[in-house]
C-alpha cells in the first residue's frame, strides 16, 4: 500500500473513532481550544502500528472504541504515599470524588478542577490548556495527547505561587472493569515557587492522561508517580514540561504490572542553568508491556538533564525505551545523560531500546548508554558464599539494579516506601 493510502486509511479510522466521543461542555474559549485539538487530531490521525515511535508498542487497544476490560484489584496493603501528609484529590474511574478529596485549597496554592476552570475564565489556564501539548507535536506527533486535549473530562489546574508545604496527591481509583478515564492536568509553578505532585493508582480499565507543567524561573517541580498494580489495566500518559532558568524539574515513575503502559515525556528546557531529571523503575511479569518514550530538548546554556530508566522483566514481559536528547544550537555547556537498562530474569523476556542523541552545539558533554542483561552470576555467588539464600540474593541484586533510578526521588520517606513495594512484588514471586 502506498504511503498516501495508508495515511488516508488512518484519517478515516480516526474520523470514525471520534464520531461518538462526546466533547465536554465548557466556556467558549475552552470549546475552541478543544475544537482546535480535534481538528489537529483529524489531520494527523491516531497512532498506527507503522508509525516510527509505535513499532514496538501496539496502539490498537489504546484507541479502540470499546475499552478492553480490566479486572479491578484490591491490594492487601495501604497504597503508596498513605503515610505522607498531603492534599488528597481523588478520582474514581476518572470521576472527581469530592467526598474522598480534601478541600481544594492550600497555602501558596490555587487549585481547582479542570472542568470548573474550563467553564469560567481563568486567564492563566486559558493560556496554558493544550499549549504544551500542541508545541510538542514537532518533530514527532503525539496524537493520543491531542485526543486528550479534545476530550478530557476532568483533571486539576494548579498554580503554585510560593513554597507549597504539602504535596498535592492525585489518587486514581479503579472500580469499574470497563471504565475509561481521560484526565488532563495543567500546572504552573510561578517564579521561585515550589510544589510536589504525587500520583498513584490505575485510574480505570483504560487511562489517558496528560499533564502540562510550566516551571517558571527559579521554580521547582517534583513529581513522583506510581502506576497501579491492576494487572490488566492500560494507560497512555503524556508529561509535558517547560523549564525556565535556574529551575528544577524532577519526575520519577514506578510501575509494577499493567498489561500496557505507554509513558511519554516531552521536556523543553528554555532557561539557562536549569536541571531536569526524569526517571522510571518498572517491574513486569508475563504479558506486561511497558514503554517509556522520552524527549528532552536543551534550548538554553549550562543546563543538566538526566534520563534514568530501568526495567525488570520476567516471564515474557516486554520493556521498551525510546529516548532522545536534543541539544539545540547555542545550548552550550549542556550536560546530558541518558541510561536505559533492562534486567531479564529469564530468556522469554525482552527489552528494546532506541537511544538517540542529536546535538547542534559544540561545547557540550552528553552521554547515553543502554544495556540489557541477566543477573550477574559473580555477584550472586559472592552473596551466596556469605550465606545469603539464592532468592534473597537475587532480590537484592534486582533492587540494586533499580537503585540509580530510585535515587532520583528526593524524599527519603518515599524512597523507603517505593523500595518496600518492589521488595514485596519480588517476594510474592519467589519460586
Amino acid at each position, binding site marked *: 500500500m502506498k504511503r498516501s493510502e495508508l495515511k488516508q486509511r488512518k484519517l478515516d479510522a480516526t474520523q470514525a473513532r471520534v464520531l461518538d466521543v462526546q466533547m465536554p461542555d465548557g466556556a467558549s474559549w475552552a470549546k475552541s481550544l478543544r475544537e482546535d485539538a480535534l481538528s489537529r487530531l483529524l489531520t494527523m490521525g491516531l497512532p498506527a502500528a507503522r508509525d516510527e515511535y509505535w513499532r514496538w508498542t501496539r496502539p490498537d487497544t489504546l484507541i479502540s472504541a470499546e475499552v478492553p476490560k480490566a479486572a479491578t484489584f484490591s491490594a492487601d496493603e495501604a497504597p503508596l504515599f498513605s503515610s505522607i501528609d498531603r492534599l488528597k484529590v481523588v478520582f474514581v474511574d476518572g470521576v472527581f470524588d469530592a467526598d474522598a478529596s480534601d478541600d481544594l485549597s492550600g497555602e501558596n496554592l490555587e487549585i481547582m478542577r479542570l472542568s470548573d476552570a474550563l467553564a469560567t475564565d481563568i486567564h492563566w489556564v486559558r493560556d496554558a490548556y493544550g499549549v504544551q501539548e500542541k508545541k510538542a507535536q514537532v518533530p514527532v506527533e503525539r496524537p493520543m495527547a491531542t485526543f486528550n486535549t479534545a476530550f478530557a473530562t476532568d483533571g486539576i489546574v494548579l498554580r503554585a505561587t510560593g513554597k507549597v508545604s504539602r504535596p498535592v496527591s492525585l489518587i486514581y481509583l479503579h472500580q469499574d472493569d470497563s471504565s475509561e478515564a481521560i484526565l488532563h492536568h495543567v500546572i504552573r509553578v510561578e517564579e521561585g515557587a515550589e510544589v510536589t505532585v504525587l500520583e498513584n493508582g490505575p485510574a480505570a480499565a483504560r487511562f489517558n492522561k496528560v499533564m502540562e507543567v510550566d516551571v517558571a524561573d527559579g521554580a521547582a517541580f517534583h513529581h513522583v508517580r506510581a502506576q497501579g498494580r491492576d494487572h490488566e489495566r492500560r494507560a497512555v500518559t503524556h508529561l509535558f514540561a517547560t523549564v525556565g532558568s535556574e529551575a528544577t524539574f524532577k519526575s520519577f515513575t514506578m510501575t509494577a504490572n499493567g498489561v500496557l503502559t505507554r509513558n511519554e515525556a516531552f521536556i523543553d528546557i528554555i532557561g539557562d542553568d536549569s536541571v531536569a531529571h526524569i526517571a522510571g523503575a518498572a517491574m513486569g511479569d508475563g504479558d506486561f508491556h511497558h514503554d517509556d518514550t522520552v524527549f528532552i530538548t536543551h534550548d538554553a546554556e549550562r543546563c543538566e538533564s538526566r534520563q534514568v530508566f530501568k526495567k525488570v522483566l520476567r516471564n515474557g514481559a516486554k520493556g521498551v525505551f525510546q529516548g532522545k536528547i536534543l541539544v539545540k544550537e547555542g545550548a552550550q555547556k549542556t550536560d546530558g545523560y541518558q541510561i536505559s537498562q533492562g534486567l531479564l530474569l529469564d530468556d522469554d523476556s525482552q527489552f528494546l531500546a532506541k537511544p538517540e542523541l542529536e546535538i547542534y552545539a559544540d561545547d557540550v558533554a552528553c552521554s547515553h548508554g543502554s544495556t540489557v542483561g541477566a543477573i*550477574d*552470576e*559473580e*555477584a550472586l*555467588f*559472592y*552473596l*551466596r*558464599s*556469605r*550465606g*545469603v*539464600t*539464592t532468592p*534473597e*540474593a537475587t532480590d*537484592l*541484586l534486582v*533492587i*540494586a*539494579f*533499580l*537503585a*540509580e533510578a530510585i535515587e532520583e526521588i528526593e524524599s527519603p520517606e518515599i524512597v523507603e516506601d517505593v523500595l518496600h513495594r518492589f521488595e514485596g512484588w519480588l517476594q510474592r514471586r519467589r519460586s
Partner: protein
Amino acid sequence: MLEIKNLHVKLEEEDKQILKGVNLQVGPGEVHAIMGPNGSGKSTTSYVLSGRDGYEVTEGEVLLDDENILELEPEERAAAGLFLAFQYPVEIPGVSNMTFLRTAVNAQRKARDEEELSATDFLKLVRAKAKSLKIDADMLKRPVNMGFSGGEKKRNEILQMAMLEPKLCILDETDSGLDVDAMKLVSEGVNALRDGKRSFVVITHYQRLLDHIKPDVVHIMYDGRIVKTGGPDLALEVENNGYADILAEVENA
C-alpha cells in the same frame, strides 16, 4: 575440622582436569598454608570448597566437621561455618556494604535458628570491627567493593569474616596487593579471630604474610595436587629458593 579426600575436579564446560587428587586435613584451631606456583589449582580448591558453579567433582569428598559439604548449596556451606576470602572480591553496584553485611549476618543467623541482630546491635558490632581494620564510615556506606583500592577490598573481606565468625576461614591470596601497613592490619584481623578452635587455610605466595600469621603446617600445591607438606620452615625454603628445587625433588621421586 576440614578433611579433603582425594579430590578430583574438572571444568564443567571443558574437558580439563584441574585438581588431580588433593588430600588435606586441617584440625581445629590449626593454621595451614598452601603455597604453589600460579595455575596449580589453589583458587580452584577454594572455589570448589565454597560451592562455585562451573566445576565438576569427579572423585573424592570434602568433610566439614564430618559432614560432606559437596552436596550443599554455597549458602548452606556458609551457614555451616565455611568462609572464603576471595582472591578477587566482587563489586556489587547498588548494594551498600552495610546492607550486604547485615543481610549476610542475619541470613546466617536465620539458617541457624538464631534471632536476627537488631539494627542497633548490628551497627555497634560493625563499627567496632570496622574500626580495628581502619575501615571508615564511607567505606561502609559505599556499594560493595565499588571504587575500593586493592587493599581496601582485602580488608573488607576480613571485615566480613570477622562479622560472620566462621569455623573455617580460607584466605585466597589475601596478602597480594597489600602494602606493609595493610598487611599488618589484615594479619591482626585474622589473628584476633584465632581462638584455638577456628581453623584457617591461608593461600599465599609469600613468606611475608606467614611472618604475621604463623602456620602450623605448610603445603606446596602443584599441578592439581599437594606435592609436599612440612612445617613453617618449608615456607622459608620457598621464599629463599623458589619452587624449582622442591618440584625437581618431587618429580624425581
